[in-house]
């Protein structure tokens, strides 16, 4: 069929004809091949213009049409449908852009005309090779996704729901309403934002057609217009929406307080929160980050943040109960714990770590354990034997008993407690505390056999025969290490530290001697020294072969020892025990210096030749470490390793015997109490599994936590540093005379103050107060985030705006001066449910007597945003009115403006009204706001500006300044744009399809924009924009079908060689390989026609319809021919 082309060039008034000699172009085109008719007309896009084309098609039998006018992005569809109306397939149309790319940008008319010719020639040449294409119709899923539940999203959702279609409304915040519900009044009508928005938010919650997905975010969008698949990530609320009545008891009981974003951080909220009483949904939500570092660092996994918060609220019993979920000895550890948690405390980034251990002690000291009811225990038939009653044994006994097993503790000593009792002296750990907590453990119904030693009095086999189904070994490490120096065993007066401390604990041994030398640098050495003092020794000397830095004993212990008069000789190594008449008379030592580090990482002491000397003394107490007495184990078939330590599987603490488990110093050698507790927990879990006949392989090994990956609450900026709580202690001069406890702990006030220093790294502390408080048991801390996939036909993006942070404009003092506020902050100050209950007060609680309102902060400012934010002038006026109304009419209000922009309905009238209310208007942008003492000596904010109307410089003192900060695109707009496949404009807001004719559509079919995510808008404009978007979505849904462009790829089966490279290159997996035919095939429903395949395919088997090589070549030829 021979091509019969009609060519039409548009004058577009003078837009084109003013530059391009349209007649000349027409004449030129008339001469081109296959051109039947060429005309020019004033407005081709007008009805007569389109009619002209249709007439020619009908009467001249045109089968190709070319229009040279504006950009095809504007009117291609217009002319295509004109062709279609005349019965010509729309793809026989081609457009040449002679306006945007030609007449509007070319200065010289001759050149413009020349360019127009070549563009026309290109189009004409190309259209010769066009083919019939039929637009495919695909069905449209009726549901609509609305993203963002501010007033725009709400309006759109309601409109769609009203039309009877289903809406999925996704909001990332826990409640809906967006910025509007933060406002107090709205201009110019001054009706309250809540009053006009709550009916809408309520309607959303009540509409059966709206599926509200609050506290959720869209993470992925697949598919195409009419057939999107949307992935939504739902954050766990930890509160069941179906049960929560919104009564708020949980929040009343929540101990954790953090700044409230909804109040622009002027107020505070709890970890379990709801932005405001009328919030929709009224369900509360719990703000949870990763578990706090104190908690994850604690070997025993005690919920530290939890009990710290409870202490802060004076809930000591609850605190102790929370501690006892992981530790049956709160009072003991409150005294002797090395407190690894304090090492991890992030408060140290502000001032110093919290005094956590002391808070634990404080809580424990306030509580009578017998007041805490014994938890219900459901009995199990199996019996477990616990050998040893140190921290490990007690922990194992306690938690195994809670699991219902029958427990018998076997202890070789007459009393329970192991090293807690016979290792740690009373002045550090009062016996009544220890006894009390042991008694509490036994309260669960645990039988005890003291004076029974494994290996001496019974064997593991005996226990098995007595019907114990599992055995826990926690025999500790009590055997002292030898000095291996001459004379060690030859004289009287050498006492092993462990024996010394044990005898002291179990019944006073009397005076150890006048002059005592203690060997070692650990806590045992210090304990022995201070105990010796208390027993009346006069000269107590500690000999340590390394320097102070290497000393493993606790710093404060060393301090106290020195204060009490203990002498410590550092860099001194033992040589021999000197004696006379069978008694110790002195201790021979040698000076050392520190050499390179040994395997323990500490520097190795090297003796200095010839530096030997003797310390006269009558008792020597070696305290150089202990090891387990594990012979008893090996005898009964439990393997031990280095230094007699019991060998266990790391994850289960199971020994070489399948029913025997071990923990504590017996396994690790001398270590801390809390580590023994931690190991015991592992053993308990393992024993429980074992007795239930389950495998132990599932038990986690020591999991290495990835550092830095934690998502904790940010350390807030600008919080004042406060000192660590002081600890009361006995006067050491007095203390050293007796065994009464040295540390007196902290006062209630300082305990509470200390708790308030906690940064709540995890926000929710999981103290479970909310769970206890909620009568509907709506709180569920076990909830998990979930991802759901929703099919929808169209999407409305209504993600709103951010207000600019004015801290960047340092000259306005925001963040430096208390009384400089942003507009949004001032809205909250005004709001009845805001931090001040709606009163306009300064931070000092007084009413301001003068207020400056600065317009265009960040707007109409090339350094920030060139655009006008469109609402500031009006809300500034509104503020003026509210100030006069609330603070009083004598209050001075100054507006610093560039131009007043009051273009909306009733706006100018409002402006006039405010002028009459006596607001001062100063035309000029303030240079700076500073803080100075005025004549009367009081500190005021001084706004320095020029008044450009009177041409004078003004310095105006005020109490308060409000910055009308710019509306700007959301920080995460780039990510949102990528998820939805839409573009951002230069100003960061989302780009509409056309600034005038397509303000709600985007470049992506089926995705629409609503509200301020597209550009700054006031509420009326936002609402209309949203209704517009709703109409677009409804248009798709109502028709149920949509034409999708036939411009897709196609692979010629006769040419395709089946190399499948196109499959690799296709971003949409739209191409599949047909094994049988050995060729690749395009799924046109999925193909978006990007042509990645076609541009690769060397044989040209893959091609994009309407963009074939022939057509592009023709266009190239046309251009180059046109050049004359």
């Amino acid at each position: 069929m021979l091509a019969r082309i009609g060519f039409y060039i548009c004058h577009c008034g003078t837009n084109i004809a003013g530059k391009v000699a349209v007649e000349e172009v027409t004449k030129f085109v008339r001469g081109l091949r296959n051109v039947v008719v060429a005309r020019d007309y004033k407005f081709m896009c007008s009805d007569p213009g389109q009619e002209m084309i249709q007439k020619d098609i009908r009467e001249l039998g045109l089968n190709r049409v070319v229009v040279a006018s504006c950009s095809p992005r504007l009117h291609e569809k217009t002319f295509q449908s004109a062709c279609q109306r005349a019965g010509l397939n729309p793809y026989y149309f081609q457009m040449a852009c002679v306006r945007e790319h030609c007449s509007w940008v070319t200065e010289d008319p001759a050149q413009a005309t020349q360019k127009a010719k070549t563009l026309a020639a290109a189009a004409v040449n190309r259209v010769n090779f066009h083919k019939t294409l039929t637009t495919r119709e695909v069905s449209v899923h009726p549901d609509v996704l609305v993203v963002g539940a501010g007033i725009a999203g709400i309006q759109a959702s309601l409109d769609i729901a009203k039309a009877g279609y289903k809406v999925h409304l996704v909001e990332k915040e826990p409640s809906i309403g967006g910025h509007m519900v933060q406002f107090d009044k709205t201009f110019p009508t001054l009706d309250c934002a809540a009053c006009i928005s709550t009916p809408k938010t309520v309607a959303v919650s009540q509409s059966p057609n709206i599926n509200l997905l609050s506290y959720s975010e869209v993470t992925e969008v697949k598919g195409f217009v009419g057939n999107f698949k949307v992935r939504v990530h739902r954050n766990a609320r930890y509160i069941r929406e179906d049960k929560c009545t919104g009564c708020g008891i949980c929040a009343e009981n929540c101990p954790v307080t953090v700044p409230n974003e909804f109040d622009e951080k002027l107020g505070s909220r709890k970890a379990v929160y709801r932005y405001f009483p009328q919030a929709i949904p009224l369900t509360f939500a719990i703000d949870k980050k990763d578990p706090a570092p104190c908690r994850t660092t604690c070997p025993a996994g005690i919920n530290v943040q939890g009990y710290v918060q409870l202490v802060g609220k004076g809930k000591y019993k609850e605190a102790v109960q929370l501690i006892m979920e992981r530790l049956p000895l709160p009072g003991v550890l409150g005294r002797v714990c090395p407190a690894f948690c304090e090492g991890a405390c992030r408060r140290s980034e502000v001032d110093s770590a919290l005094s956590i251990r002391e808070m634990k002690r404080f809580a424990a000291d306030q509580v009578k354990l017998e007041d805490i009811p014994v938890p219900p225990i459901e009995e199990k038939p199996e019996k477990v034997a616990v050998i040893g009653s140190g921290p490990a044994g007690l922990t194992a006994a306690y938690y195994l008993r809670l699991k219902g097993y029958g427990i018998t503790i076997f202890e070789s000593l007459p009393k329970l407690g192991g090293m807690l009792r016979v290792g740690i002296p009373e002045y550090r750990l009062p016996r009544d505390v220890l006894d009390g907590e042991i008694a509490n453990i036994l309260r669960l119904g645990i039988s005890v056999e003291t004076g029974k030693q494994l290996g001496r009095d019974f064997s593991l086999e005996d226990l098995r025969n007595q019907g114990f189904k599992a055995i826990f070994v926690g025999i500790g490490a009590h055997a002292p290490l030898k000095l291996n120096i001459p004379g060690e065993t030859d004289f009287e007066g050498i006492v092993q530290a462990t024996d010394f401390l044990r005898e002291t604990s179990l019944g006073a041994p009397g005076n150890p001697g006048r002059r005592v030398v203690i060997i070692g640098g650990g806590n045992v050495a210090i304990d022995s020294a201070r105990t010796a003092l208390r027993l009346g020794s006069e000269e107590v000397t500690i000999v340590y072969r390394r320097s102070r830095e290497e000393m493993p004993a606790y710093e404060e212990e060393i301090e106290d020892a020195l204060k009490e008069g203990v002498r410590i000789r550092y860099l001194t190594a033992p040589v021999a025990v000197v004696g006379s008449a069978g008694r110790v008379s002195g201790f021979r030592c040698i000076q050392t210096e520190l050499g390179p580090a040994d395997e323990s990482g500490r520097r190795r002491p090297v003796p200095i030749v010839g530096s030997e000397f003797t310390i006269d003394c009558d008792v020597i107490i070696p305290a150089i470490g202990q090891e387990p007495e594990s012979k008893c184990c090996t005898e009964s078939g439990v393997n031990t390793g280095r230094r007699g330590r019991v060998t266990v599987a790391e994850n289960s603490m199971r020994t070489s015997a399948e029913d025997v488990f071990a923990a504590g110093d017996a396994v690790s050698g001398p270590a801390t109490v809390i580590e023994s507790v931690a190991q015991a927990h592992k053993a308990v879990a393992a024993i429980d599994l074992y007795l239930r006949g389950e495998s132990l392989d599932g038990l986690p090994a020591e999991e290495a936590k990835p550092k830095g990956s934690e998502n904790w609450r940010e350390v807030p900026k600008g919080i004042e540093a406060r000192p660590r709580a002081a600890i009361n202690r006995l006067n050491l001069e007095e203390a050293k005379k007796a065994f009464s406890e040295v540390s007196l702990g902290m006062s209630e006030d300082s305990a509470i103050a200390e708790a308030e220093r906690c940064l709540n790294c995890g926000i929710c502390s999981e103290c479970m107060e909310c769970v206890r408080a909620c009568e509907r048991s709506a709180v569920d801390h076990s909830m998990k985030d979930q991802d759901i996939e929703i099919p929808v036909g169209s999407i409305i993006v209504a993600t709103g705006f951010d207000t600019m942070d004015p801290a960047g404009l340092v000259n306005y003092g925001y963040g430096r001066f208390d009384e400089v506020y942003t507009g949004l902050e001032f809205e909250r100050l005004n709001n009845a449910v805001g931090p001040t209950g709606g009163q306009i007060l300064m931070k000092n609680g007084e009413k301001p007597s003068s207020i400056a309102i600065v317009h265009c902060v960040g707007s109409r400012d090339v350094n920030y945003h060139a655009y006008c934010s469109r609402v500031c002038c009006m809300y500034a006026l509104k503020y003026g009115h509210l100030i006069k109304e609330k603070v009083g009419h004598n209050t001075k209000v100054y507006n610093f403006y560039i131009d007043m922009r009051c273009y909306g309905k009733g706006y100018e009238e409002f402006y006039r009204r405010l002028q009459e209310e006596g607001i001062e208007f100063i035309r000029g942008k303030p240079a700076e706001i500073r803080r100075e003492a005025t004549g009367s000596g009081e500190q005021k904010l001084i706004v320095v500006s020029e008044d450009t109307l009177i041409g004078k410089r003004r310095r105006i003192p005020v109490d308060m300044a409000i910055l009308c900060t710019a509306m700007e695109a959301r920080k995460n707009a780039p990510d949102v744009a990528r998820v939805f496949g839409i573009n951002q404009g230069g100003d960061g807001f989302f780009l509409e399809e056309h600034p005038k004719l397509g303000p709600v559509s985007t470049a992506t079919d089926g995705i629409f924009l609503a509200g301020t995510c597209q550009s700054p808008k006031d509420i009326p404009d936002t609402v209309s924009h949203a209704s517009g978007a709703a109409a677009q979505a409804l248009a798709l849904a109502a028709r149920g079908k949509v034409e999708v462009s036939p411009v897709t790829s196609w692979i010629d089966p006769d040419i395709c060689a089946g190399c499948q490279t196109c499959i690799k290159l296709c971003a949409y997996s739209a191409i599949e390989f047909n094994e049988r035919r050995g060729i690749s095939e395009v799924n046109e429903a999925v193909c978006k026609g990007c042509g990645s395949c076609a541009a690769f395919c060397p044989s040209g088997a893959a091609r994009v319809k309407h963009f074939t090589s022939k057509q592009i070549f023709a266009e190239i030829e046309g251009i180059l021919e046109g050049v004359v």
Partner: protein
Amino acid sequence: MIEYEPTIIAFVCNWCTYTAADLAGTSRLVQPPNVRMIRMMCTGMVDPKYVIKALLEGADAVLISGCHPGDCHYINGNLKARRRIKLLKEIIPKFGFDERRLKMTWIGASEGIDFAQTVRSLVAEVKQIGPNELRTKMVL
């Protein structure tokens, strides 16, 4: 250097650079008239033979311009295009074409000013290089 009016063929993507060119137009950003735009849906559909054809037939330069990486309307068509242009830049200069006759840029939908600027500088550059004789020479 002989003063002449170069003809530059630009293969631009519909979503970013073509939109930017429209924006440049609506903003009346004056540009030299030498660029002739061929609208593609995506730079990813620019077949190397289009570029070769344009140069062999006498285009004084070829411009390929699309969305910035990450902004491609088709996810990554522009990245595939970049590799193809990389290859052409290895081949074409071997036959005496000035390497500057083949240019690729990223110009986003909102960057009308960048577009106008790119056109200005490219035209100036190509005027420097001088005409591509092939337009009137016997090469096919």
